Protein backbone atom coordinates (compact mmCIF):
# COMPACT_ATOMS: atom_id res chain seq x y z
CA UNK A 1 0.00 0.00 0.00
CA UNK A 2 2.89 2.32 0.64
CA UNK A 3 3.90 1.94 -2.97
CA UNK A 4 0.57 3.28 -4.14
CA UNK A 5 1.82 6.88 -4.69
CA UNK A 6 4.77 5.50 -6.62
CA UNK A 7 2.43 3.49 -8.82
CA UNK A 8 0.32 6.56 -9.40
CA UNK A 9 3.39 8.54 -10.41
CA UNK A 10 4.53 5.84 -12.81
CA UNK A 11 1.08 5.60 -14.33
CA UNK A 12 0.88 9.36 -14.72
CA UNK A 13 4.26 9.42 -16.41
CA UNK A 14 3.19 6.65 -18.74
CA UNK A 15 -0.03 8.39 -19.66
CA UNK A 16 1.64 11.72 -20.34
CA UNK A 17 2.04 13.31 -23.72
CA UNK A 18 5.48 11.86 -24.20
CA UNK A 19 5.36 12.16 -27.98
CA UNK A 20 5.70 15.91 -27.96
CA UNK A 21 9.50 15.94 -28.04
CA UNK A 22 10.15 12.36 -28.94
CA UNK A 23 12.96 11.82 -31.38
CA UNK A 24 12.30 9.71 -34.41
CA UNK A 25 13.74 8.50 -37.65
CA UNK A 26 10.70 6.78 -39.10
CA UNK A 27 7.07 7.76 -38.86
CA UNK A 28 6.45 4.45 -37.15
CA UNK A 29 8.69 5.53 -34.29
CA UNK A 30 5.92 7.91 -33.31
CA UNK A 31 2.57 7.04 -31.83
CA UNK A 32 -0.64 6.82 -33.78
CA UNK A 33 -1.71 10.16 -35.14
CA UNK A 34 1.81 11.55 -35.07
CA UNK A 35 4.39 11.79 -37.79
CA UNK A 36 8.14 12.25 -37.91
CA UNK A 37 9.58 15.48 -39.24
CA UNK A 38 13.12 16.73 -38.84
CA UNK A 39 13.79 14.02 -36.29
CA UNK A 40 10.93 14.97 -33.97
CA UNK A 41 7.46 13.52 -33.64
CA UNK A 42 4.73 16.00 -34.49
CA UNK A 43 0.98 15.87 -34.15
CA UNK A 44 -0.97 15.46 -37.37
CA UNK A 45 -3.85 17.47 -35.94
CA UNK A 46 -3.32 21.19 -36.64
CA UNK A 47 -3.49 23.49 -33.66
CA UNK A 48 -6.87 25.22 -33.26
CA UNK A 49 -6.92 28.78 -34.59
CA UNK A 50 -8.02 31.37 -32.04
CA UNK A 51 -9.25 34.67 -33.41
CA UNK A 52 -8.58 37.53 -31.05
CA UNK A 53 -11.75 39.50 -31.74
CA UNK A 54 -14.14 36.56 -31.81
CA UNK A 55 -15.58 37.48 -28.45
CA UNK A 56 -15.80 41.25 -28.80
CA UNK A 57 -19.16 42.82 -28.01
CA UNK A 58 -21.43 43.67 -30.93
CA UNK A 59 -21.74 47.35 -30.09
CA UNK A 60 -18.11 48.01 -29.39
CA UNK A 61 -18.14 50.48 -32.27
CA UNK A 62 -15.38 52.55 -33.79
CA UNK A 63 -13.53 52.86 -30.55
CA UNK A 64 -13.00 49.16 -30.45
CA UNK A 65 -11.81 49.10 -34.03
CA UNK A 66 -9.42 51.94 -33.49
CA UNK A 67 -7.96 50.16 -30.55
CA UNK A 68 -5.73 48.28 -32.92
CA UNK A 69 -7.66 45.19 -33.74
CA UNK A 70 -6.20 44.63 -37.16
CA UNK A 71 -8.82 42.19 -38.32
CA UNK A 72 -11.69 44.47 -37.42
CA UNK A 73 -10.14 47.44 -39.14
CA UNK A 74 -9.38 45.49 -42.27
CA UNK A 75 -12.85 44.06 -42.48
CA UNK A 76 -14.49 47.37 -41.80
CA UNK A 77 -12.53 49.20 -44.43
CA UNK A 78 -13.28 46.54 -46.98
CA UNK A 79 -16.98 46.58 -46.22
CA UNK A 80 -17.19 50.32 -46.25
CA UNK A 81 -15.36 50.60 -49.56
CA UNK A 82 -17.63 48.11 -51.20
CA UNK A 83 -20.77 49.80 -49.99
CA UNK A 84 -19.63 53.22 -51.12
CA UNK A 85 -18.72 52.06 -54.59
CA UNK A 86 -22.15 50.58 -54.95
CA UNK A 87 -20.98 48.13 -57.54
CA UNK A 88 -23.32 45.23 -57.81
CA UNK A 89 -20.49 42.91 -58.66
CA UNK A 90 -18.55 44.00 -55.68
CA UNK A 91 -21.46 43.82 -53.33
CA UNK A 92 -21.19 40.09 -53.23
CA UNK A 93 -17.56 40.47 -52.43
CA UNK A 94 -18.47 42.77 -49.65
CA UNK A 95 -20.87 40.19 -48.38
CA UNK A 96 -18.12 37.64 -48.50
CA UNK A 97 -15.91 39.89 -46.55
CA UNK A 98 -18.55 40.59 -44.00
CA UNK A 99 -19.35 36.97 -43.69
CA UNK A 100 -16.01 36.63 -42.08
CA UNK A 101 -16.33 39.78 -40.09
CA UNK A 102 -16.39 39.97 -36.37
CA UNK A 103 -19.46 41.17 -34.50
CA UNK A 104 -17.63 44.35 -33.71
CA UNK A 105 -17.64 45.30 -37.34
CA UNK A 106 -21.37 45.92 -37.41
CA UNK A 107 -21.09 49.30 -35.84
CA UNK A 108 -18.34 50.26 -38.22
CA UNK A 109 -20.45 49.38 -41.23
CA UNK A 110 -23.32 51.38 -39.89
CA UNK A 111 -21.08 54.37 -39.53
CA UNK A 112 -19.87 54.10 -43.07
CA UNK A 113 -23.34 53.74 -44.56
CA UNK A 114 -24.65 56.68 -42.68
CA UNK A 115 -21.92 58.86 -44.14
CA UNK A 116 -22.64 57.94 -47.73
CA UNK A 117 -24.92 59.97 -49.88
CA UNK A 118 -28.26 58.40 -50.84
CA UNK A 119 -28.07 56.37 -54.00
CA UNK A 120 -24.42 55.77 -53.88
CA UNK A 121 -24.56 52.75 -51.73
CA UNK A 122 -27.22 50.11 -52.02
CA UNK A 123 -28.55 49.44 -48.60
CA UNK A 124 -28.81 45.81 -49.52
CA UNK A 125 -25.09 45.68 -49.34
CA UNK A 126 -25.06 47.16 -45.94
CA UNK A 127 -27.85 44.91 -44.81
CA UNK A 128 -26.18 41.87 -46.15
CA UNK A 129 -22.98 42.93 -44.60
CA UNK A 130 -24.71 43.45 -41.32
CA UNK A 131 -26.58 40.20 -41.53
CA UNK A 132 -23.45 38.40 -42.34
CA UNK A 133 -21.79 39.47 -39.21
CA UNK A 134 -21.81 35.99 -37.80
CA UNK A 135 -18.14 35.37 -37.64
CA UNK A 136 -16.70 32.26 -39.22
CA UNK A 137 -13.35 32.05 -37.62
CA UNK A 138 -12.07 29.38 -39.97
CA UNK A 139 -12.35 31.56 -43.07
CA UNK A 140 -10.60 34.63 -41.92
CA UNK A 141 -8.15 34.15 -44.77
CA UNK A 142 -10.85 35.24 -47.20
CA UNK A 143 -11.14 38.60 -45.57
CA UNK A 144 -8.49 40.36 -47.58
CA UNK A 145 -9.27 43.88 -48.65
CA UNK A 146 -8.74 42.92 -52.29
CA UNK A 147 -12.06 41.13 -52.25
CA UNK A 148 -13.87 44.38 -51.71
CA UNK A 149 -13.56 45.47 -55.31
CA UNK A 150 -12.14 48.72 -56.75
CA UNK A 151 -11.68 51.66 -54.49
CA UNK A 152 -13.74 54.62 -55.48
CA UNK A 153 -12.61 58.16 -54.72
CA UNK A 154 -15.97 58.65 -53.06
CA UNK A 155 -14.85 56.24 -50.46
CA UNK A 156 -13.38 59.20 -48.68
CA UNK A 157 -16.76 59.36 -47.04
CA UNK A 158 -15.65 56.40 -45.07
CA UNK A 159 -12.30 57.94 -44.30
CA UNK A 160 -12.97 58.23 -40.57
CA UNK A 161 -13.50 54.55 -40.46
CA UNK A 162 -10.25 53.87 -42.29
CA UNK A 163 -8.42 56.38 -40.18
CA UNK A 164 -5.52 54.14 -39.33
CA UNK A 165 -3.24 52.47 -41.83
CA UNK A 166 -4.71 49.30 -43.18
CA UNK A 167 -2.62 46.64 -41.56
CA UNK A 168 -3.79 43.97 -43.97
CA UNK A 169 -4.78 40.48 -43.03
CA UNK A 170 -2.52 40.20 -40.06
CA UNK A 171 -4.72 37.71 -38.32
CA UNK A 172 -4.71 35.23 -41.15
CA UNK A 173 -4.03 31.90 -39.46
CA UNK A 174 -0.93 30.09 -40.59
CA UNK A 175 -1.16 26.36 -40.07
CA UNK A 176 1.58 25.20 -37.79
CA UNK A 177 2.55 22.29 -39.91
CA UNK A 178 5.85 21.07 -41.16
CA UNK A 179 6.41 20.31 -44.85
CA UNK A 180 5.85 16.67 -44.13
CA UNK A 181 2.34 17.31 -42.98
CA UNK A 182 1.01 16.25 -46.35
CA UNK A 183 2.10 12.67 -46.08
CA UNK A 184 -0.56 10.24 -47.16
CA UNK A 185 -2.63 8.67 -44.48
CA UNK A 186 -1.37 5.16 -44.00
CA UNK A 187 -4.43 4.09 -42.13
CA UNK A 188 -2.80 3.33 -38.82
CA UNK A 189 -5.94 4.25 -37.04
CA UNK A 190 -7.90 1.61 -38.86
CA UNK A 191 -5.53 -1.18 -37.95
CA UNK A 192 -7.26 -2.80 -34.99
CA UNK A 193 -4.30 -4.60 -33.50
CA UNK A 194 -2.92 -4.22 -29.99
CA UNK A 195 0.10 -2.06 -29.34
CA UNK A 196 3.19 -3.79 -28.09
CA UNK A 197 4.93 -0.61 -27.13
CA UNK A 198 7.33 -1.42 -24.34
CA UNK A 199 9.31 1.72 -24.74
CA UNK A 200 12.41 0.02 -26.00
CA UNK A 201 12.82 1.99 -29.19
CA UNK A 202 12.40 5.36 -27.51
CA UNK A 203 15.48 7.47 -27.04
CA UNK A 204 17.01 7.49 -23.67
Amino acid at each position, binding site marked *: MRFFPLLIAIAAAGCGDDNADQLC*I*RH*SNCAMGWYCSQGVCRDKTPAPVVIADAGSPADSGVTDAAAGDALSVADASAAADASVVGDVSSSSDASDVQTDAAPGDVALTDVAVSDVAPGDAPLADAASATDASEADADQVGDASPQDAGPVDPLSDAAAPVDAGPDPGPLDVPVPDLAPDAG*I*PDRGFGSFPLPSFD*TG*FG*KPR
Partner: protein
Amino acid sequence: MRALLCSALLLGANTASAKQVEAELGVGLVTGLMAGNVASGTLWMGSPFKLRADWAAHIEEDYSRRYRIGLEVPLHERIALGIRPGVDFPFKVIGWPFSIGLGLRSYVTPYTLHGVEGQLSWRPKLLGKIELDAGGSASAFFFGNDLPSQGALIEFHGHLGVRLPL
Protein backbone atom coordinates in the same frame (compact mmCIF):
# COMPACT_ATOMS: atom_id res chain seq x y z
CA MET B 1 0.27 -56.21 -60.09
CA ARG B 2 0.65 -53.38 -62.60
CA ALA B 3 -1.17 -51.04 -60.26
CA LEU B 4 1.15 -51.97 -57.45
CA LEU B 5 4.15 -51.34 -59.67
CA CYS B 6 2.83 -47.97 -60.79
CA SER B 7 2.18 -47.00 -57.17
CA ALA B 8 5.71 -47.92 -56.24
CA LEU B 9 7.06 -45.88 -59.12
CA LEU B 10 4.97 -42.91 -58.16
CA LEU B 11 6.07 -43.18 -54.56
CA GLY B 12 9.66 -43.37 -55.67
CA ALA B 13 9.17 -40.40 -57.93
CA ASN B 14 7.73 -38.36 -55.06
CA THR B 15 10.68 -39.29 -52.87
CA ALA B 16 13.06 -38.27 -55.60
CA SER B 17 11.33 -34.93 -56.14
CA ALA B 18 11.31 -34.24 -52.38
CA LYS B 19 15.08 -34.42 -52.44
CA GLN B 20 15.15 -31.64 -55.00
CA VAL B 21 14.09 -29.20 -52.29
CA GLU B 22 15.79 -29.61 -48.95
CA ALA B 23 13.95 -27.17 -46.79
CA GLU B 24 14.41 -25.84 -43.30
CA LEU B 25 12.45 -23.55 -41.07
CA GLY B 26 14.00 -20.81 -38.98
CA VAL B 27 12.66 -18.60 -36.22
CA GLY B 28 14.43 -15.97 -34.19
CA LEU B 29 14.53 -12.55 -32.62
CA VAL B 30 16.50 -9.54 -33.80
CA THR B 31 17.22 -6.18 -32.30
CA GLY B 32 19.92 -3.54 -32.48
CA LEU B 33 20.44 0.04 -33.48
CA MET B 34 19.18 2.18 -36.27
CA ALA B 35 20.49 5.46 -37.63
CA GLY B 36 18.89 8.03 -39.83
CA ASN B 37 19.58 11.50 -41.13
CA VAL B 38 17.56 14.26 -39.53
CA ALA B 39 17.84 18.01 -39.47
CA SER B 40 20.54 18.07 -36.80
CA GLY B 41 22.63 15.34 -38.40
CA THR B 42 22.59 11.62 -37.82
CA LEU B 43 20.31 10.29 -35.13
CA TRP B 44 20.91 6.92 -33.50
CA MET B 45 18.13 5.04 -31.79
CA GLY B 46 17.42 1.58 -30.50
CA SER B 47 15.68 -0.62 -32.98
CA PRO B 48 12.61 -2.46 -31.79
CA PHE B 49 12.64 -6.21 -31.24
CA LYS B 50 11.41 -8.12 -34.24
CA LEU B 51 10.25 -11.67 -34.63
CA ARG B 52 11.46 -13.38 -37.75
CA ALA B 53 10.48 -16.63 -39.38
CA ASP B 54 11.70 -17.93 -42.67
CA TRP B 55 11.58 -20.93 -44.90
CA ALA B 56 14.77 -21.75 -46.75
CA ALA B 57 15.78 -24.50 -49.09
CA HIS B 58 18.57 -25.86 -51.17
CA ILE B 59 17.32 -26.46 -54.68
CA GLU B 60 18.41 -29.50 -56.62
CA GLU B 61 21.19 -30.44 -54.28
CA ASP B 62 23.01 -27.21 -54.82
CA TYR B 63 24.49 -26.75 -51.37
CA SER B 64 26.43 -23.68 -52.28
CA ARG B 65 23.36 -21.50 -51.83
CA ARG B 66 20.09 -21.58 -49.99
CA TYR B 67 17.05 -19.60 -51.10
CA ARG B 68 14.79 -18.22 -48.45
CA ILE B 69 11.61 -16.26 -47.99
CA GLY B 70 10.89 -14.85 -44.59
CA LEU B 71 8.45 -12.77 -42.60
CA GLU B 72 9.23 -10.16 -39.99
CA VAL B 73 7.02 -8.51 -37.39
CA PRO B 74 8.08 -5.74 -35.00
CA LEU B 75 7.07 -6.63 -31.48
CA HIS B 76 6.52 -3.07 -30.30
CA GLU B 77 6.06 0.43 -31.67
CA ARG B 78 3.68 0.10 -34.58
CA ILE B 79 2.94 -3.42 -35.61
CA ALA B 80 3.71 -4.17 -39.23
CA LEU B 81 4.42 -7.00 -41.61
CA GLY B 82 7.67 -7.31 -43.48
CA ILE B 83 9.00 -9.79 -46.00
CA ARG B 84 12.60 -10.85 -46.48
CA PRO B 85 13.44 -12.77 -49.63
CA GLY B 86 17.07 -13.56 -50.17
CA VAL B 87 19.84 -16.05 -50.76
CA ASP B 88 22.25 -17.50 -48.20
CA PHE B 89 25.70 -18.80 -49.02
CA PRO B 90 26.90 -21.39 -46.48
CA PHE B 91 30.59 -21.85 -45.85
CA LYS B 92 32.88 -23.22 -43.16
CA VAL B 93 35.68 -21.66 -41.17
CA ILE B 94 37.85 -24.15 -39.27
CA GLY B 95 35.01 -26.61 -39.35
CA TRP B 96 32.39 -24.18 -38.05
CA PRO B 97 29.41 -23.59 -40.30
CA PHE B 98 28.70 -20.01 -41.24
CA SER B 99 26.44 -18.37 -43.74
CA ILE B 100 26.42 -15.06 -45.56
CA GLY B 101 23.06 -13.82 -46.70
CA LEU B 102 21.97 -11.15 -49.12
CA GLY B 103 18.44 -10.10 -49.76
CA LEU B 104 15.68 -7.58 -49.82
CA ARG B 105 13.78 -6.33 -46.82
CA SER B 106 10.41 -4.69 -47.19
CA TYR B 107 7.62 -3.71 -44.90
CA VAL B 108 4.43 -3.96 -46.84
CA THR B 109 1.63 -3.07 -44.44
CA PRO B 110 0.34 -0.87 -42.88
CA TYR B 111 3.25 1.30 -43.94
CA THR B 112 5.90 0.60 -46.56
CA LEU B 113 9.64 0.55 -46.27
CA HIS B 114 11.96 -1.01 -48.81
CA GLY B 115 15.64 -1.74 -48.62
CA VAL B 116 18.42 -4.29 -48.82
CA GLU B 117 20.05 -6.43 -46.19
CA GLY B 118 23.24 -8.37 -45.68
CA GLN B 119 23.81 -10.79 -42.83
CA LEU B 120 26.41 -13.07 -41.36
CA SER B 121 25.35 -16.09 -39.30
CA TRP B 122 27.01 -18.75 -37.24
CA ARG B 123 25.05 -22.00 -37.41
CA PRO B 124 26.43 -24.74 -35.23
CA LYS B 125 24.52 -27.90 -34.40
CA LEU B 126 22.59 -27.42 -31.21
CA LEU B 127 20.47 -30.51 -30.50
CA GLY B 128 20.31 -33.29 -33.02
CA LYS B 129 19.29 -31.68 -36.26
CA ILE B 130 18.44 -28.35 -34.70
CA GLU B 131 20.90 -25.60 -35.52
CA LEU B 132 21.61 -22.44 -33.62
CA ASP B 133 21.44 -19.29 -35.71
CA ALA B 134 23.37 -16.38 -34.26
CA GLY B 135 24.85 -13.43 -36.03
CA GLY B 136 24.36 -9.91 -37.23
CA SER B 137 22.89 -8.05 -40.12
CA ALA B 138 22.89 -4.61 -41.67
CA SER B 139 20.02 -3.10 -43.59
CA ALA B 140 19.56 0.11 -45.53
CA PHE B 141 16.18 1.52 -46.42
CA PHE B 142 15.71 4.15 -49.06
CA PHE B 143 12.06 4.01 -50.08
CA GLY B 144 8.70 3.84 -48.43
CA ASN B 145 6.11 6.05 -46.85
CA ASP B 146 7.47 5.34 -43.39
CA LEU B 147 10.51 7.48 -44.10
CA PRO B 148 10.33 11.24 -43.77
CA SER B 149 11.09 13.16 -46.93
CA GLN B 150 14.71 12.98 -48.01
CA GLY B 151 15.41 10.46 -45.30
CA ALA B 152 17.29 7.21 -45.24
CA LEU B 153 17.59 4.59 -42.56
CA ILE B 154 20.29 2.11 -41.65
CA GLU B 155 19.78 -0.68 -39.15
CA PHE B 156 22.36 -2.88 -37.47
CA HIS B 157 20.87 -5.95 -35.89
CA GLY B 158 21.99 -8.89 -33.89
CA HIS B 159 19.88 -11.99 -34.23
CA LEU B 160 19.45 -15.22 -32.33
CA GLY B 161 17.30 -18.15 -33.29
CA VAL B 162 17.10 -21.77 -34.27
CA ARG B 163 16.72 -23.62 -37.54
CA LEU B 164 14.85 -26.87 -38.02
CA PRO B 165 15.39 -29.08 -41.07
CA LEU B 166 12.07 -30.20 -42.55
